[in-house]
C-alpha cells in the first residue's frame, strides 16, 4: 500500500482543516477550514471502504469485486449536509460583515463586548 493512498491524504486534509480552524482569525478562512475538514472526512470514509481492484457497485456481467456502495451513499448525504452548513455559514458571514464591517474574530470580540 503506497504512502499516498486516499486514507493518508484525507488525514492530511483533515489536519489542514483543523489547523485552519484553530489558528485563523478571518471568518471566511474559518468557514473554508470547516469545509476542508468536511471534505477530508468524506474522502477518508470513501477511501476506507475502497477495495483494491473493485469496480463500481453496479451488478453487471463479469463483475467479481465490488466496492461497498453504502459509504458512497452516506457520503453523498454528507456532502449535501456540508454544503448546507457552509452556505449557511457564508450567509451569516455576509450579514456579520454588513453589520460590523470587519471579518476578524478578535475585532468582533471587542465590538461584541461593548
Amino acid at each position: 500500500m503506497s504512502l499516498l493512498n486516499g486514507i493518508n491524504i484525507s488525514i492530511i486534509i483533515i489536519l489542514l482543516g483543523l489547523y485552519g480552524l484553530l489558528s485563523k482569525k478571518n471568518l471566511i478562512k474559518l468557514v473554508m477550514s470547516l469545509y476542508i475538514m468536511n471534505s477530508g472526512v468524506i474522502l477518508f470514509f470513501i477511501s476506507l471502504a475502497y477495495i483494491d481492484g473493485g469496480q463500481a457497485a453496479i451488478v453487471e456481467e463479469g463483475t467479481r469485486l465490488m466496492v461497498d456502495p453504502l459509504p458512497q451513499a452516506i457520503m453523498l448525504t454528507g456532502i449535501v449536509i456540508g454544503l448546507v452548513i457552509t452556505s449557511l455559514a457564508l450567509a451569516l458571514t455576509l450579514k456579520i460583515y454588513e453589520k460590523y464591517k470587519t471579518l476578524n474574530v478578535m475585532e468582533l470580540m471587542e465590538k461584541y463586548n461593548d
Partner: protein
Amino acid sequence: MMLNLNFWPIDPLSFLMLVILLVLLPMVFLFSLAYVKRNYFRYFSVLFITFMAMLGVVLVKDFLALYVFLEIMIVGIYFLIIDNTKKESFPAGYKYILMMFIGGIFILVASLMLYNLTGTFNMAQIFSLVPALPSQALLPIFVLFTIGCLIEIGAVPFHVWLPDAHPVAPSPISALLSGVAIKVGAYGLIRLIITLQMNSVVFVWLGSVSMVFGVVVAMRQTNIKRLLAYSSISQMGYVLLGIGLGTGLGLGGALFHTINHAIFKMLLFLCMGAIIFSTREREINKLGGLAKKLPVTFVAFCFGALAISGIPPFNGFASKALISNAVAGNIYLKIALVLTAAGTFAAFLKLYFNVFLGRMPKTLKKIKPVPFLMRLPMVALALLSLLIGLFPHIVMARFIEPIVLLRFSYLYWQPGLLLETLMIVTLGSAIYYVGIKSGFSRLKGEDQAGFFSLDRLYCALAGLVQNFSYWLRHFLSRSLNVYLRWIFLTLVLLLALFWLQCN
C-alpha cells in the same frame, strides 16, 4: 423511597411542640393584623403557609418529611423577612436563607445516610433498629444532622444569621423567628437524640459558649431588636446545655426552657414591635421615657424582662432552676450559668432604664397609641408567663414528664436557688452600672459585635467564592479559536486517558 406523611401517633414531644405552636402562632397572627399595612395578600398567604409548615415539622414522624416541611418553613420565613422591602432587609435575608438552606441540606444528607443504613425514614422504625447498628456508622449521621440543627437553632458558631435577620424583619416575624422557628431547630435536635439514642458532651460546651457570648455581645447593642436577638442566642445556649447534659433532669429543664423562652421572647419582641410601631425608632439613644405613654407595653416588658432574667415568680425562674439542679456539681458550668443570668439581667436593665424610664428625647415627636390587637397578645403572653411561673408543676406534669419519664417534684422553691437569684440581681445591676460607666455597654453608635464578630469569617468565605467566580469569568472569555482549541484539547485528553488504559 417515598415520602410518608404520617402524623400519628402524636407522641408527647410532638404534643408539647404542637401546644406551643397553637398558643403562639395566633399571637403572631393577631399582632400582624395590626402591624401590616400593605401587601396583605402576599404577607398573610405566606404566613399561613409558614404556619402550616411549622405544624408539619413538629408533627411528622419521618425524617424526610421533617426536611420537606423544614424547607418550606425556611423559605416562607425568608419571604416574610423581606416583606418589608427596605434596603437593608435584603442582605440580611440573603444571609439567612443561605445559612438555613445549608443547614437543611446537612439534615437531608444525614437523613439519606440514615436511610441507607436502616432502610427507612420512619422515626419509630429507626428507633427500634438503632441498637443493632455499629456506632461508627451512626457517628457521621449524628454529626451532620447536629450541624444542620445547630444552624437552625442559631448556636455559636453558626449564629451569624440571627442578629442580622431579626432587626430587619417586620416585628411579628422577628417574634416568629425567635419564638418559634428556633424552637423547631431544637425540636429536631431532641428528636435526633431520642431516635438515635446518642448524645454528645459537645452540646454542653457549645451551649455554654453560646450563653456567655450571647449576653456579652447583647450588652453592647444599641438596636433594641438586635439586643433581643443576641439574647435569644444566649437563651438557646441554655437549651443546648440542658440537652447535652444527657440526664432526665437536664432534658426536662431544656424542654421547659423551650416553652418558657418561646413565651417570654415572643412577648419581648412583640413589646419591641409595639414600640417600633408607635415611635418608628429602633435605636436606644433615640428612645426614652416611654413608660408613661405606653403603659401596657411597659408592664408587659417588665413581666418579660423579669421572666428572662429568671426572677421568681415568673416562668424563667422555674426552668433555670431545673437546669441549675441539672448542672449541680460542676463548678464551671455553675459559674457560667450565674454569669449569663447576671448578664441577661444587665442587658434588660439597659433596656428598662434607657427605653422606658428616663427623659424622652426631643426627637421623638408623635407617638401612636398601640392598637388593641397588639396589646392583646402582649397581655396574654405576660399573664401566661406569670401563670406558668406560679404553677410550674402543672406544665411539668402534663407535658414534660411524659417525655422524660421522671417525676419532678418541687425542685424550684429551694432557698439555695432563691439566694442565687438575689446574687444574680445584684451582680447584674453591678455589671450594668460598670458597663455603662466604662462605655462597654453603649447607648449609641453602630452595633457591630466588633472583636467578637464571626460574621467576618462567613463574609470572607462568601467573598472568596465570588472573587473566584469573577476571576473565572475574566479568565474564560476568549475568542472563537481558543474555544475550538479547548474542544480539541479535550479530545486529545480523553484519547490519552483511554488509550493509556488499553493493553
